[in-house]
């Protein structure tokens, strides 16, 4: 950065949501200053904040964007992430924190398990998982916390079946994101999970199952993959696949209940669901704060991003860019939006995005088909939320 002196006057990240289903209001203020503009991180370092849709696409697909977390200017969107530089967490960072050519090789190792055909095969299993949870919920009523009883366990069950991790051990990976974002717990949480996964993967060498991790254990036994590397893969898949999806489903339920006209359209015409899921993904975008470092000078209109500058991409803001979307702050399940940035853009675009789409669609459709009279048990304002790098509802009390 070439202007360290003015950092004290800049808007500061992270920003928090005032309304669960809208990005922080200040993201619009940032975009009004500029789609790529200077802000200050919590530690005082200046960084570029990107809230423009076009600019996000262009920069995230640039070959001059690195995800190297050990670069001195690598942005830290929230305090807890600084703890991850610890030597006790060597296993983190596969895929999401590697650049080509290492990233290319890692992504190719995992990609065969995430093709659209492979995901399609999971559909009936996901439908069964949701149906079983809904049986339990309707038997339990009349007030149920959907986060504890539906979204978290259903997504954990899908993940456990997909990966081949016992559902009974879900304490290791559930809530990990939140423990991960707590500076006091993050290193222990990740060290525990790493140890657990190492033991599990060793056991699979002599007692294989039929999950994604079992396929990769096969590559280890064939000498095509290092054991340490496999632990890294398991760690990132467990972390990335649980709370992002579970939180998106819970927040979608809340959002639809608060937009009854939109929910009515879906109840009337269930064929709208895939379209609605895409709009909900655009509208909600619970993951934000993607960090990058420029590895060369990049010219963007009048703006120069200098070699070594840090950038934080606020994708929930870019999804509300009026230069790209009409009435961006309105939920409209009939609009066709496929170019939202909820899964990112560029070579790191979410590898599990098509699984997430299927999970969100099935979980929502199953819930509202089974309980069309679903409603909040408390006013929205009383529902506890979790701010942070992954936004979520701490609870979702519903009745019917």
């Amino acid at each position, binding site marked *: 950065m070439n202007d360290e002196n003015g950092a004290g006057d800049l808007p500061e990240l992270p920003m928090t949501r005032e309304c669960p289903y809208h990005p922080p209001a200040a993201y619009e203020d940032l975009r009004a200053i500029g789609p790529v503009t200077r802000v200050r991180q919590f530690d005082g370092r200046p960084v570029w904040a990107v809230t423009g849709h076009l600019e996000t696409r262009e920069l995230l697909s640039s070959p001059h964007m690195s995800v190297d977390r050990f670069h001195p200017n690598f942005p830290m969107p929230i305090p807890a992430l600084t703890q991850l530089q610890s030597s006790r967490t060597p296993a983190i960072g596969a895929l999401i924190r590697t650049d080509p050519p290492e990233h290319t090789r890692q992504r190719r190792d995992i*990609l065969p398990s995430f093709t659209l055909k492979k995901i399609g095969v999971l559909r009936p299993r996901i439908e069964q998982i949701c149906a079983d949870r809904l049986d339990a919920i309707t038997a339990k009523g009349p007030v149920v916390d959907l986060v504890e009883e539906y979204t978290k366990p259903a997504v954990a069950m899908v993940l456990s079946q997909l990966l081949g991790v016992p559902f009974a051990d879900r304490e290791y990976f559930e809530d990990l994101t939140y423990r991960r974002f707590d500076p006091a717990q993050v290193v222990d949480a990740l060290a525990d999970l790493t140890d657990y996964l190492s033991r599990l993967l060793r056991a699979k060498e002599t007692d294989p199952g039929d999950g994604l991790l079992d396929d990769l254990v096969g590559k280890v036994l064939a000498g095509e993959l290092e054991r340490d590397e496999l632990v890294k893969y398991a760690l990132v898949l467990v972390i990335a696949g649980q709370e992002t999806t579970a939180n998106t489903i819970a927040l979608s339920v809340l959002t639809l209940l608060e937009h009854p006209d939109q929910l009515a359209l879906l109840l009337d015409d269930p064929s709208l669901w895939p379209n609605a899921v895409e709009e909900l993904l655009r509208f909600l975008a619970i993951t934000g704060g993607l960090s990058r470092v420029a590895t060369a000078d990049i010219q963007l209109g009048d703006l120069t991003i200098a070699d070594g500058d840090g950038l934080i991409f606020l994708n929930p803001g870019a999804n509300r860019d009026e230069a790209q979307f009409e009435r961006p702050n309105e939920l409209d399940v009939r609009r066709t939006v*496929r170019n939202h940035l909820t899964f990112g853009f560029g070579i790191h*675009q979410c*590898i599990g995005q098509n699984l997430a789409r299927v999970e969100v669609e099935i979980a929502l459709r199953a819930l509202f088909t089974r309980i069309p009279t679903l409603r909040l048990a408390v006013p929205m304002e009383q529902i506890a939320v979790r701010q942070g790098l992954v936004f979520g509802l701490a609870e979702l009390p519903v009745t019917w």
Partner: protein
Amino acid sequence: MSGAKTLLPSGDATRCVGAGQCVRTAPDVFDQDDGGTVVVLVAEVDESHRALLDEAAYLCPASAIAFTERG
């Protein structure tokens, strides 16, 4: 139709990151192989596919999709 162009789609498997956007957009033109990267199913398509090919190229996060014209 006289003057109609033929479109020649391409998918660069070395750039591909397997996001699946092209397959979701134009499933009769693009698919994924067992490794998860792009394969082009047809050598050429007619003009009616232009909007879909444009969309597939636009949505691809790795700039792996393109097409040329003939005729």
